[in-house]
Structures are given as structure tokens and as C-alpha cells.
């Protein structure tokens, strides 16, 4: 049940914030169809980030969704790029990565939980 209701909010926020390096955080809303944001979605479940490493193109927005009964956070290990509020059950957080790089992050509440976003240069022209 809780897995279905998240995409919609993420979608609307993604539209607004696409291309802008901005974070969004929202409570779950009523059910609407799933959307393209699932492309770069990280599930927080059983005290872990899945996938633990995600590779995205520069400019992509990544959304974290907390499916645990326990609150978690998403915070850059170096304290810079990513800083989510506390995400309770079913809440999500989105962050747009403007620049290429490797962004290590963790849950500041449960620091054993770690993950990594690899942001790659956008290829100027698509191969064929």
C-alpha cells in the first residue's frame, strides 16, 4: 500500500524542480499513477538504501522513499551536497544533482546505513 502512493508527489515536485538544484520533501499524497521519477528512486527499507550505489546523469533528480517503520535521514558524508529532513514512514525526499561527481551519503540517525550517488557527465550528443 505505502509503496504505491509515493510517486505522484515526487512527480509533481520533479516537474517544478527539474534542472534546478533544489530539494523537496513531502508527505505522501493520494494515489496517482506512478511516474518517471521511479527511474532514480532509492528505497529505504530494512535499515538500508537500495540500491546502495546509483549512477545518474548530471541534472538528474534522485528520490529517496522511506518504507521503514523507523525514521531515517539522507545526509552527505562530507556535510555538503545532500541534507534531508527526517523522513518518517512513507515520506520522501528529492535532490537534483547538477554537477558530476561521487556523492557519498549516510543516515545520520543510523550511521551504519550508507550509500553513494555517482553523477556522470552528460554526453553532449547521443551515440547514434
Amino acid at each position, binding site marked *: 500500500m505505502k509503496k504505491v502512493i509515493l510517486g505522484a508527489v515526487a512527480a509533481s515536485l520533479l516537474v517544478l524542480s527539474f534542472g534546478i538544484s533544489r530539494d523537496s520533501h513531502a508527505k505522501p499524497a493520494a494515489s496517482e499513477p506512478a511516474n518517471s521519477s521511479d527511474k532514480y528512486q532509492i528505497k529505504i527499507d*530494512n535499515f538500508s538504501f537500495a540500491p546502495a550505489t546509483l549512477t545518474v546523469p548530471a541534472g538528474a533528480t534522485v528520490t529517496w522513499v522511506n518504507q521503514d517503520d523507523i525514521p531515517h535521514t539522507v545526509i552527505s558524508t562530507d556535510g555538503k551536497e545532500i541534507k534531508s529532513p527526517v523522513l518518517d514512514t512513507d515520506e520522501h525526499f528529492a535532490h537534483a544533482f547538477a554537477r558530476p561527481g561521487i556523492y557519498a551519503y549516510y543516515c545520520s*540517525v543510523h550511521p551504519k546505513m550508507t550509500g553513494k550517488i555517482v553523477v556522470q557527465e552528460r554526453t553532449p550528443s547521443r551515440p547514434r
Partner: protein
Amino acid sequence: MPRQKEELILENHNRDGVDRRGFLKCMAWAGTGALCVVKGGILRSYSLSDPSALAAGASNGELAFVQISDSHMGFNKPANPDVVATLQAAVDKINAAPVEPAFLLHTGDISHLSKPAEFDTVDQVLRSAKAKQVFFVPGEHDVLEDNGQQYLDRYGKSAKGSGWYSFDQKGVHFIALVNVLNLKAGGLGSLGPEQLDWLQDDVKGLAASTPIVVFAHIPLWTVYPEWGWGTDDSAQALAYLRRFGSVTVLNGHIHQTMRKVEGNITFHTAMSTAFPQPQPGTAPSPGPMKVPADQLRSLLGVTSVDYVPGRHTLAVVDSSLD
């Protein structure tokens, strides 16, 4: 519930299901410091449903106090939809005990989401305790978002640093430590250099015969690092305490009782008043453990501690809520 038979005997929470031998063996431990059972280097304690057994120890005691932990006020998921009722049941149980504790210790995760209303509710329930004094340490759930400022404003006005302090009661030196802030990626609980320096200084002038009680949220011994159940720099803290003849370490965080003895140091974790968590490694994660409603209160509880002058070890006894 998947519990092994050996532990079923020692941890039987049902009033009518207590194995006599296991029960007596554990009572002997509670009074004298003898051990219950060793499993993987960890001494497991048991839950006691009979308040009259509590009284037997406490009435001789010079100092009796009760530890409560992990009330997680605000949690409302299926594992326990009414954490107010179970906290109240814990207070009622403490109030019904024949010996009134001198004070309560709350070893953190007072709230679930650090919301003011959650702390307010806990304060309100605790006002119904006969024991009027409550000493707190924060859990990681109490310091969300604001690095613990709200916690300090409420509970730590006279504390040092992020909330650590010490006090003396009837010759026992109590030390409250904070290990839930400034956690490093990939790491465990953390005390930090400032607090460790303070601890070293705090115990410097004490005679080695002074009984020490240390309380903190996350265990100060490594219970299960895979789930973050330990404190990275606890060894340094324990190094400052090893010269003392009796050190009792009381923790919460893991929502189940566990015990370990290391020289003069006895480690003990308390049950939650809100929801149980699985035994290490028996589930995909340490998340709340859902049990049938009629079993919930047998897995929640409080911990009574007695200090009798002249006795080497403090008696630590767990009681479930049912």
C-alpha cells in the same frame, strides 16, 4: 516467536509458565552476581513477572531505582498502536511495587520523532509515577533535526556538553553519557573526545571502592555492530572505569534485555516500553518486531536496580509489563 528453548526457559514471561529451576537460577544471580546463561559471550537475563520477588531484594536495599527506556512516544505502527498505554502500564507497575524507587532513569528514545507534543505526553505520564525524580539521557530519536537543542532545553539545563552529567546518591556515583550525536558515516554510537575528557576528570577523585552506575542510550559494549548496536569509543570510557570495584552499565536502544560481565563491569540493556526488536541477526533489520497483541506486554518492561552496601554487584532485575 522464534526463540530457542534454552532462552524460553530463562526468559519465560508468563506468570504460569516459569520453569522453576531456570527461575531460581536467575534469582540467585539477581541477588549474588552469579550468572544466568552464557550464549555467544553474551549473558542473557530474564523477565520477572512476580513483584514479590522484587521486594525480597529491594527491602534489604540501601538504594533502589528503576530504569525505563525507549518509550518512543509518537510511534503508532502495528507493532504497538498505543505507546501511551504501555508507558502508563510501566509506570503503574513501578508504582505497584512494594518498594518505592528513589528515582527513575530514562535511557532515551523518550520520543519517536523529537516532537514537542511527544515529550509533553511522556512528561505527563511520568508525573503519575510516585517517584518524582527522573534522570534522562537522549536517544537518537530525541535529537532529530536540531542536534539535540530541544532535548537540552527540556532535560539538560544543568548538564554539560550535549547532555552529559553525573550525580551521587547514597554513595553510588551515577554517570549519564550521551552517545547519539555527531555520528560518523559507517560508524556506531559516539561519545566524542570532549565527553571522554570530562568523564576522565569526573571520576578522577573517586575512591576505587565507589560503586559506579553509568547510563547511556546505545550500548557501551558491542552487542551487534552490523545493526549499529555498540559505541565506537566506549573502550576509552571503560578504560577510565576499570579501576573501580563495581561498575554497572545500563543501556537501552535494542529493546530487549541482554547482559554481559567483563571483569568488574556489568553491562545490561533494558526492554522498551513501546515495542520489541528482534534478537541480533534473526531478522533482516532491527526494525520494530510485530508480535500477537496478547504477547506484546510480555516483551515490554522495566528494570529495577538495588544497591546494597557491602555487596559487590548491584542487583539488576527485569520485569515485563504483563
